[in-house]
């Protein structure tokens, strides 16, 4: 997929924006991406739009210009942006269009998401008995992972502290105050072993990425970033996934593992090539697990890697340099395009205080969401 280039990225701040609708935030992100690319809206030939809260995120065109282009709304839980990015890239690869956009936006009410289990193919009793909850899944996944691979609660605190610290130097992040490991460890226990400050919050924001055929990228930018791979995978039977009333005894790898392998293969790259990564940190445990699921370390190595600072901006494998979901919160439709925004800044060398030293060349982004869908994107200079 080396025939697709990223020529413009834009995002809003993430946080709380009373009086602004999700769609207005979406339009703001698109305008920022257009400015970044030096393009006008009427040059955009097609789009994909993602949102959880907004039925029709394509209505963003009301605030951009009604030019009649095809826009497809996509949704895959927290992996929504991976679907938007993948479909946009595939549309260019197909040859009909040269220039398109992926945009995501959301504006969530405060508190955990509430839905009906029947809408996920689950029986009503699953919700009625208090089992249809996302946070407790992440808690149980990391609980078992810690037992199997010797990860300590202190490491979970290190993950969160790093992400708040990175958030403090990310002008567009939601949570911009550093927090000590002690405060994170001793904050209110929400779902053991995860405390309040080890979780990200649903919030508000939008992000957009403009893609073009690589062969014409030089018309728009002197430094195109190439989208080498973008893939989505659902769960296999036996994977330990959110919203599972049961699991078979025979385990299968998580969907992230399969998405990751497919993306590496498509890109012709491997984990050793990755210079900077954005991983789905719905909670501190998720970042720990995803580091291994994406091949960036072996199971259990995280305990040492976090103690040594390997995942810091100056470390050997910087993770969530913009503070990830923990510092940015998660507007579902936008979250993965925020990852692409950050990776693009890093590969361009324009990440400012957050810049990974040594001219990073390969960036890696991963998403995971209900009901067990993973997305992986690999970018390179």
């Amino acid at each position: 997929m080396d025939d697709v280039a990223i020529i413009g990225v834009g995002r809003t701040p993430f946080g709380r924006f009373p009086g602004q609708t999700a769609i207005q935030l979406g339009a703001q992100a698109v305008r920022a991406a257009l400015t970044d690319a030096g393009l006008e809206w009427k040059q955009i030939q097609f789009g994909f739009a993602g949102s959880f809260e907004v039925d029709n995120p394509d209505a963003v065109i009301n605030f951009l210009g009604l030019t009649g282009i095809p826009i497809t709304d996509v949704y895959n839980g927290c992996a929504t942006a991976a679907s938007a990015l993948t479909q946009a890239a595939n549309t260019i690869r197909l040859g009909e269009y040269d220039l398109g956009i992926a945009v995501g936006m959301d504006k969530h009410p405060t508190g955990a998401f509430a839905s009906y289990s029947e809408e996920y193919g689950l029986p009503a009793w699953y919700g009625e008995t208090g089992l249809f909850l996302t946070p407790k899944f992440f808690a149980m996944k990391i609980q078992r992972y810690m037992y199997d691979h010797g990860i300590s609660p202190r490491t979970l605190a290190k993950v969160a502290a790093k992400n708040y610290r990175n958030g403090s130097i990310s002008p567009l992040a939601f949570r911009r105050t550093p927090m000590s490991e002690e405060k994170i460890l001793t904050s209110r226990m929400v779902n053991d072993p995860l405390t309040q400050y080890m979780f990200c919050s649903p919030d508000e924001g939008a992000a957009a990425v403009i893609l073009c055929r690589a062969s014409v990228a030089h018309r728009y930018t002197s430094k195109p970033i190439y989208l080498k791979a973008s893939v989505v995978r659902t769960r296999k039977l036996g994977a330990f996934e959110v919203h599972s009333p049961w699991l078979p005894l025979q385990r299968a790898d998580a969907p992230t593992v399969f998405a990751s392998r497919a993306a590496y293969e498509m890109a012709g790259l491997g984990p050793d090539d990755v210079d900077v990564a954005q991983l789905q940190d719905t909670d501190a445990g998720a970042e720990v697990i995803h580091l291994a699921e994406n091949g960036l370390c072996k199971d259990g190595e995280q305990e040492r890697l976090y103690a040594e600072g390997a995942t810091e901006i100056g470390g050997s494998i910087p993770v969530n340099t913009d503070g990830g979901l923990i510092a940015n919160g998660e507007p579902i439709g936008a979250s993965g395009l925020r990852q692409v925004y950050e990776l693009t800044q890093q590969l361009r060398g324009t990440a400012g205080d957050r810049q990974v030293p040594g001219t990073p060349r390969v960036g890696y982004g991963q998403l995971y969401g209900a009901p067990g869908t993973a997305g992986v994107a690999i970018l390179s200079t």
Partner: protein
Amino acid sequence: MAQRVVAEGLFDWPSDEPRLIGSKCQVCDLVAFPAYPNCPNCGSLDVAETRLSTRGTLWTWTRQRFQPKNPPYLGTEAAADFVGYGVGYIELPEARVEARLTGGVDEPLEIGQEMELTVVPFATDADGTEVLTYAFRPVENSAGKN
């Protein structure tokens, strides 16, 4: 006091020795829970009801310390009265089953400890009817974690 089960077909009730009701694929032998209309492995519609074992070990766990939104949750305690509950996966000989755990949020729990099935009230309908679901509790006097 009037009682009802949260869902018919989930476990035997009334019963002195209730068991969870799953389904077993007649093609590939996979046991699923709750009973599925189809096999989630091979897709076959040729599935038969099966009872699961009542004892197993705790495979992983957490505690639900914030009150789930109602609906869909049936619990109606005032926020201040919500005490939370344990949740875990119990490894049975047939499958790992997710369940509420008995005991409050201070009950010590360890991966590997022996657990057994029970049926507990967890909510009360507006008319006072207690709503029952399955849960697992630590086996008393067990040898502890294997």
